[in-house]
């Protein structure tokens, strides 16, 4: 099996195909600190792509409550457990987070999903990746028991007593909302597992798609994807997955006049939690230095955005700003060893980070570059014993054509619609 370079693991790893990289890579950052669990992204995706017969159980994008929930249920616990069983006691990181873009999180000394596939081989059928097939029940009830620990529905339209949060039935631990979609991985396990080569990664933007005319519904991709973002549709007997709203990313939507546009789930976010972009990558899938690209800044300069379960080894292209309030051991497991640093930087943001955070959801177009214009100091306070200075800088966003999309300030003024026009479009 060939070796490819995985910069998130900080080392080469085995993968069924030769090293290849797209011209640009679809990527996104989600700021968990702002996500309030409104599910607007979930519904935006559902109402656009998965409203048809046979897709009832499908949520290409979903928001789950951690640590209780998951869609399908317990997906991450099950994969972590399988990896642990395959490599007992050795799933750990060596080294320390550092500034090297080839191994910013140190080196993963354990095994990823491509490095222990024999563990789950069944019936003489070789597997390309370690994985499992979720049961129908696990797919069927997204969010069940996530916010309330009570029994579930007992009859149609009965949402259970627990649905009433004020009833006193609550979980006793911390929680946060994890918004998920296909990570359009650099080394997709779904693609590796497909025996018909029906899954491909587009050379222009790295979006991973299933060719519906080639798919025969073997569900190898469903089994192999460690994030469980490939789903089977019984009515067509094929598997389906997030398509990254590729017509929008291609700039085909009339609204943006030919420049790339953010996906539906990104554009619908009311909490301004999400930012999507296209990043340039080298031949080994490390990121090309692009200092004024907002995603490059968040991932490689400020280092506040981290990949989801990098130890799985698929090099996911979804990055998360981890929540400030969650115990670190749990976050380390989910986002890798750089999480402490990321939270510290986010808790005490410098002026550039504050400015870049203002770029989230200010436009439907994908931001290709930003510039900063320094403004006056607004105030200075003591925050957790550290000096925090607030500057009203201006941040200017440019699209792919180099045109200015918008400019906004760190102290963003807010405009509230009048009651008369509250719902006017």
């Amino acid at each position, binding site marked *: 099996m060939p070796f490819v370079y995985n910069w998130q693991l900080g080392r080469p790893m085995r993968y069924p195909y030769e090293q290849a990289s797209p011209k640009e890579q679809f990527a996104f950052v989600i700021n968990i600190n*702002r996500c309030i669990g409104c599910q607007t992204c979930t519904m935006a995706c559902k109402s656009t792509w998965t409203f048809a017969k046979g897709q009832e159980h499908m949520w290409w994008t979903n928001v789950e409550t951690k640590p209780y929930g998951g869609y399908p249920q317990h997906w991450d616990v099950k994969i972590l457990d399988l990896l642990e069983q395959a490599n007992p006691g050795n799933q750990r990181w060596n080294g320390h987070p550092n500034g090297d873009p080839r191994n910013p999180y140190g080196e993963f000394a354990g095994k990823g999903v491509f490095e222990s596939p024999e563990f789950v081989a069944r019936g003489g059928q070789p597997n390309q990746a370690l994985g499992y097939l979720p049961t129908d029940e696990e797919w069927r009830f997204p969010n069940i028991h996530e916010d309330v620990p009570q029994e579930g529905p007992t009859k149609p339209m009965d949402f259970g007593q627990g649905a009433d949060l004020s009833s006193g039935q609550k979980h006793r631990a911390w929680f946060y909302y994890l918004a998920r979609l296909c990570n359009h991985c650099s080394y997709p396990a779904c693609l590796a597992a497909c025996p018909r080569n029906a899954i491909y990664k587009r050379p222009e933007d790295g979006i991973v798609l299933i060719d519906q005319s080639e798919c025969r519904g073997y569900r190898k991709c469903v089994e192999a994807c460690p994030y469980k973002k490939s789903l089977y549709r019984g009515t067509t007997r094929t598997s389906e997955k997030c398509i990254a709203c590729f017509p929008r990313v291609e700039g085909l939507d009339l609204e943006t006049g030919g420049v790339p546009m953010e996906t539906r789930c990104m554009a619908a976010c009311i909490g301004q939690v999400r930012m999507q972009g296209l990043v340039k990558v080298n031949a080994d899938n490390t990121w090309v230095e692009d200092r004024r690209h907002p995603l490059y800044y968040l991932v490689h300069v400020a280092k506040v955005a981290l990949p989801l379960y990098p130890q799985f080894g698929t090099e996911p292209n979804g990055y998360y700003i981890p929540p400030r309030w969650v115990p670190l051991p749990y976050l380390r*497991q989910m986002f890798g060893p750089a999480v402490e640093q990321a939270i510290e930087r986010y808790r005490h943001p410098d002026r550039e980070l*504050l400015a870049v955070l203002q770029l989230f959801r200010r436009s439907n177009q994908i931001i290709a570059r930003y510039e900063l214009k320094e403004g006056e100091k607004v105030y200075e306070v003591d925050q957790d014993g550290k000096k925090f200075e607030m500057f009203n800088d201006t941040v200017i966003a440019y699209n792919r054509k180099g045109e200015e999309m918008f400019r906004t300030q760190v102290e963003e003024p*807010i405009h509230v619609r009048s*009651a008369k026009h509250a719902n006017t479009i």
Partner: protein
Amino acid sequence: MPYDDPDPTDPMTLHGVSIETGDDSAMLEMAECFIDEYARLGFDANRILHLFNTRGYAGPFMAATVLGNERIRGLVAAVLARRGERRAPALGRTTEKRGIGLTVLNG
């Protein structure tokens, strides 16, 4: 290498993560974080309180349910005050005619 014998207290090991429960300090920090984030986006005190009182916004609503409205109001005032006087409009003053109802929860 120091990793030859896995040490359960080593923060670089990944397996066997326990979930801590008990006090409400994480909930308080989460509520404070939401207030901070939305204040940064330009929300005033009443709009932030509206988040905490709206069932559809599950995170803040859960925090308000657990911590109680009074603690949330106190937290909003404290966080906004920390951000400077002009970012801390008086609680209870509505920003527009339709206003925002502050439902009292049985927290």
